[in-house]
């Protein structure tokens, strides 16, 4: 139980965790959602959290975002108490349709993050164009979210998050509502975006293959109340590849281990 955070600190030369959960318990409405969760995420690490539904994985992400405050324990960011949400932490919600402003165009939605950051209006258009190009939406600046497909809307939300220039990117089942092909394409794009920006990522998903494919480390939560049940290091070569990575013996071994874990938690 004296888990991840301490173990990480013990390794010489390993940087201090960027996000650290220290004995975090969250009680909402008399119900313990998360109990005594300790966990550290190194700068630049890609951490995936999986678990059966209702295990508190989304809640853990919201604690990391500062959208919830722990009942007990501490959440630290760069060694300081988390408190309210911060500019350095961006969150990509699963329900892109609700998270985008329907009355603003794609450019307007990206602009919101720049406006919040106080960027002068003269500098915004160039930055917006650059961000839309980065997520593969050049030429869609004038479209409204309702005129875009699900995959495009999620790209747009990612662009808005990148506009924050986040140190940490929190992603809550971002591809859960997308079809398989779109999902695979976006997985690879997120990997290359993250590799380019060096951001730390906490990625919540219920798709075990996706977790192993993307992550440096995968944590499986046990439900009622949410706590860490399994922790796997993913030592697969990068850059990852949809075919060869998924056929790698190590991938298959981890997949087996994770499936067995989830199966056991569901009984």
């Amino acid at each position, binding site marked *: 139980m004296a888990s991840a955070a301490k173990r990480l600190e013990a390794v010489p030369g390993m940087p201090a965790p960027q996000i650290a959960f220290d004995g975090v318990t969250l009680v909402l409405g008399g119900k313990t959602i998360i109990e005594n969760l300790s966990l550290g995420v190194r700068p630049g690490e890609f951490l995936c959290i999986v678990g059966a539904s209702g295990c508190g994985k989304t809640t853990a992400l919201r604690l990391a*975002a500062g*959208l919830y405050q722990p009942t007990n324990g501490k959440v630290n960011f760069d060694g300081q108490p988390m408190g*309210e*949400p*911060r*500019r350095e*932490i*961006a*969150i990509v*919600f699963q*329900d892109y*349709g*609700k*998270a985008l*402003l*329907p*009355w603003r165009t794609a450019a307007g939605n990206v602009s*919101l*993050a720049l*406006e*919040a950051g106080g960027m002068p209006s003269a500098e915004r258009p160039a930055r917006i164009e650059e961000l839309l190009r980065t997520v593969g939406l050049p030429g869609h600046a004038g479209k*409204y*979210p*309702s005129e875009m497909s699900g995959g495009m809307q999620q790209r747009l939300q990612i662009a808005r998050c990148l506009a*924050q220039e986040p140190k940490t990117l929190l992603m809550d089942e971002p591809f859960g509502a997308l079809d398989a092909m779109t999902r695979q394409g976006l997985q690879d794009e997120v990997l290359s975006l993250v590799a380019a920006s060096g951001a730390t990522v906490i990625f919540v998903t219920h798709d075990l293959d996706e977790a192993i494919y993307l992550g440096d480390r995968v944590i499986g939560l046990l439900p009622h109340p949410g706590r860490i049940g399994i922790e796997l290091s993913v030592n697969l070569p990068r850059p990852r590849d949809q075919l060869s990575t998924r056929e790698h013996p190590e991938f298959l071994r981890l997949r087996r281990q994770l499936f067995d874990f989830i199966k056991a938690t569901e009984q």
Partner: protein
Amino acid sequence: MTGNSAKSLILPFAVLAAFEVWARATHLQSDSLAPPSEIVMALFGAFADLSILAATRDTLFSAFAGLAIGTIIGLALGIAFGIFDTLNRLMEVTVEAIRPIPSIALLPIALIALGFGYRMEIVIVAFACVWPILILSRAAVRSIEPRLMEVARALRLPPAQRVWKIIIPAALPRIFVAFRLSAGIALIVAVTVEIAINPLGLGAGIMLAQQALRPDLMLAYLVWIGAIGYALNVLLVVAQNRLFGRAALSGDGA
């Protein structure tokens, strides 16, 4: 569409024609009824001597001024109550105690305080318009998608920008519906005040025609007020579709 609206006109025109025939056949003599042809002639007459235009100007001035003041007050209170739950609970009893007072019941007080004229009428119209705007904009703010408020928090939008860039645009389609409702109320209340006491505008015009035993002119005023109300609503519906067609589709439908 045009076929349908043409069909929907058949019945009213048939009724009018039958009434015209009946009135002529019986040589109708009445203080309250007049055949349609005479009503139309009276309306032309009132336009010719500009009396109805002056009355329209007076009524619309009072109605719009009251609507504007009522909208500003109602919107400010509604948004504040929608955002700050504590404030809302503090004010709830007060609001619910004042709201049921019929605006016309304020007439005697307003008359003593402000006398005849525009000011008294504007105040009463504003009072009537505040409530629908307040109640509906409060509900609109409360029903904003919570995810949008989380996005605002995560982006660290300052409070003023949260109101201006998230809350107002998100609530605007529903606030506009409240505005349409209040525009209708404004016209009704303005004319009512004029009929009851204020010697101005279309309501006073009706009363004058009645006292002059001119049912044709009285009914001409009535037709004209109906036309104004209808035109106002059409105008606002068109504006609503123009402004919020997209938002209404993507926002309320989901």
